[in-house]
């Protein structure tokens, strides 16, 4: 996702000289080419995220389209008040980019697990929040940033994620669910965000092998959120299952549950899979930490099978 972002940002910078990348002294080997190609559109603010966010606001007031860049929780939680007061209150065109969402920096420990970022960023007034699932979504979301006015949070994985979408999502529409596979009248609707589409896709494969009908959806847009799209899924399905590499509170699952709660007729039951709201002390890579919190296709498909009405078992 990281390389997809930088490639697309370079394209944006080429087209629009107001585009400016401000890094918090991170991006070794990743931003080098951008800095060389666009020296007047690149700035290293140093290890100082509060100042980076304030500077981004100041640059944006003066007409620049700013992208701040760092890893894990540094460009978000470390400077959340600057984002709220300086960027959001003034509706400035600043896109905050965090690399290493979820457990991407797993072995580095709790400080480097970005697991509540989407909840906190999407609570900020006027903040767009995009949490793509794979490099294709990451590139398409970055492209959208080039046309957005106002504050945006772009939450990326690290690098080398499996590509799930077969095509480039050239016509990606902001705030809409992306259909990946399966019929929308299937009894199970699987929706993924925050880099978890690979888990959801694997879960869908397991369920299909058990002859359980599944539709698969990607939902990189947490804010604005596709309430209507989710309600349609919930009206047609028996189970609406959300999978996200993010805390269970305040992310995709919470958004879906909120959307479904407004339905008056028969609707699907919601099952949410994510990270429990407690500090993870375990040490390990992304795959290992996912499995520690139950974010595996095996665990999710078993839970879904058990939860389905008996006629589908």
């Amino acid at each position: 996702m990281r390389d997809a972002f930088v490639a697309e940002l370079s394209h944006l910078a080429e087209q629009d000289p107001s585009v400016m990348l401000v890094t918090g002294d991170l991006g070794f080997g990743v931003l080098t080419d951008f800095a060389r190609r666009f020296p007047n559109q690149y700035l290293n603010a140093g290890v100082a995220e509060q100042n980076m966010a304030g500077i981004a606001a100041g640059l944006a007031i003066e007409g620049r389209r700013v992208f701040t860049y760092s890893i894990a929780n540094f460009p978000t939680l470390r400077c959340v008040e600057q984002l709220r007061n300086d960027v959001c209150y003034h509706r400035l065109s600043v896109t905050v980019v965090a690399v290493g969402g979820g457990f991407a920096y797993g072995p580095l420990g709790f400080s480097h697990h970005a697991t509540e970022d989407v909840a906190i960023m999407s609570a900020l007034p006027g903040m767009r929040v995009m949490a793509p699932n794979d490099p294709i979504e990451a590139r398409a979301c970055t492209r959208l940033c080039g046309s957005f006015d106002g504050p945006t949070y772009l939450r990326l994985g690290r690098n080398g994620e499996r590509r799930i979408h077969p095509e480039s999502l050239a016509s990606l529409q902001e705030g809409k669910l992306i259909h990946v596979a399966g019929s929308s009248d299937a009894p199970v609707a699987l929706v993924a965000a925050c880099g978890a589409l690979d888990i959801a896709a694997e879960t869908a494969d397991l369920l299909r092998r058990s002859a359980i009908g599944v539709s698969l959806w990607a939902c990189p847009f947490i804010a604005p959120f596709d309430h209507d799209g989710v309600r349609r899924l919930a009206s047609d399905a028996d189970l609406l299952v959300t999978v996200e590499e993010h805390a269970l509170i305040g992310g995709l699952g919470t958004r879906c549950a909120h959307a479904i709660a407004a339905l008056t007729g028969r609707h699907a039951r919601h099952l949410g899979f994510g990270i429990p709201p407690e500090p993870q002390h375990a040490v390990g890579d992304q795959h290992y930490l996912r499995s520690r919190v139950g974010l595996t296709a095996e665990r999710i498909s078993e839970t879904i099978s058990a939860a389905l009405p008996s006629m589908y078992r």
Partner: protein
Amino acid sequence: MGSEAITAAKLALRIRCHAIRMTSKGRSSHVGSVLSCADILATLYACVMRVRPAEPTWPKRDRFIMSKGHAGAGVYAVLAEMGFFPIERLDTHCQNGSALCGHVAVHGIPGVEFSTGSLGHGLPVATGMAYAIKARGEDCRTFVLLSDGELDEGSNWEAFLFAGHHRLRGLCAVIDYNKIQSLASVSETLALEPLADKFRAFGWVVRECDGHNHMELSAALGAESIDAPIVVIANTVKGRGVSFMEHSVLWHYRSPQGEELAAALAELEGVSHA
């Protein structure tokens, strides 16, 4: 005194009188903070900054950010006196439905560049503005007024480091150095001295002056040919101009009412007739 200083003196007095009335009617805090920086605001707007009240977003204007946003009444007063909006609007300060809140807000108020209220935000934003202006090759200046207590916020020192490193000529930080912060004196809370040395060590040009002397302020706030940001340490008195408010932590919070209101205005208006 030159004519500029006389204008600044009159403007400062009006800012003080407005602030007393606004914080009284609005039953709001921080009148002592406004009185402390009234002369700085008056000198900036009367003598130093290039602004066009009829064209608040004139691209070549100098920018001003009030980082000590709790003294917002002073910003509203100086802008109204300069003609950015009608003086009558000051009566709505802190009233239901008004645009003029207790801290500085940008929405619907011509002349305000940026909203503040949480300390430690103004300097980083001003730094970003100054960086962008310098990159465009323009000579507009960016002023930011900070309180001394506000310097406790680490975000300021990130910005001091950045602006010094990038030699942001055109950026001017002003410290309203009244030596009193929210609960006690600065020296009892988190001592700042040697303050000038700290700024010099961060690569800034330092100027010190009497923060109530308009001639000294005007000279200190003037443009600098050296390729570096400027910080003006303005030595001030909290509550300046109203004897019973001077040097007092109480008037960081208290809203003047009844006899206090009358006494404060009488003292200020007495000065105006002297």
